């Protein structure tokens, strides 16, 4: 991967009707937080049909496990699990998360998302800023706590935008 291309991978996923929610700091960026990140985290819907769509995109992007010297490729059984699949693709490092926080999967989170429209006209679901702040507060690791001031300030500023 020569250059992280976040927008392109989101377009690719959306174009195949893959159901996923953008979480973590890329969600923060999409909401306007002036932060940076090196990977894209998504919570994907763990149904056979959706995982087949996700696997097609992952295959096109030569996805392999990031920390596996053998170049292991993700399989349906991996993506059906609630665990975290840390992948490297030709566009960006991609973390496919079965669940986040206190056992929250796609169905648990979908009511706490906002739909953002991409330039292609396709829309993606992104964890809402209040929900993102909540997940960071609950995780409460040093890296989560460090992100809170800028996320809270972004929420406050976004409420001023007419």
């Amino acid at each position, binding site marked *: 991967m020569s250059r992280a291309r*976040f927008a392109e991978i*989101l377009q690719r996923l959306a174009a195949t009707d893959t159901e996923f929610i953008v979480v973590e700091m*890329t969600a923060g960026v999409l909401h306007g937080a*002036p932060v940076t990140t090196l990977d894209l985290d998504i919570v994907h819907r763990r149904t056979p049909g959706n995982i087949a769509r996700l696997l097609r995109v992952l295959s096109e992007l030569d996805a392999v496990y990031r920390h596996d010297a053998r170049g292991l490729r993700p399989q349906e059984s991996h993506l059906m699990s609630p665990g975290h699949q840390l992948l490297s693709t030709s566009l960006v490092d991609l973390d496919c998360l079965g669940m986040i926080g206190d056992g929250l999967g796609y169905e648990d989170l979908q009511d706490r998302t906002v739909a953002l429209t*991409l330039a292609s006209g396709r829309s993606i679901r992104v964890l809402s800023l209040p929900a993102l702040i909540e997940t960071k507060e609950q995780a409460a690791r040093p890296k989560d706590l460090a992100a809170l001031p*800028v996320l809270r*300030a972004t929420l406050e500023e976004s409420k001023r*935008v007419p």
Partner: protein
Amino acid sequence: MRTVSSSRPAPADPLLPDIDENGVDRAQIRAMLALSPEERLRKVEEYVAAALEIRQLNEPRSLR
């Protein structure tokens, strides 16, 4: 859980630095909010690319 209040007054001049009590640059946030979501991602892509390029240029060369 801490609640976010909107009681902070907006600055009179949007071009002046506006650092809040936590050290967060509010002007930077407003600049990001003025962009579309995809433009925000491009900003991150550009930043990461530039940072990685500098890192690569400064990686210690292996001795032969």
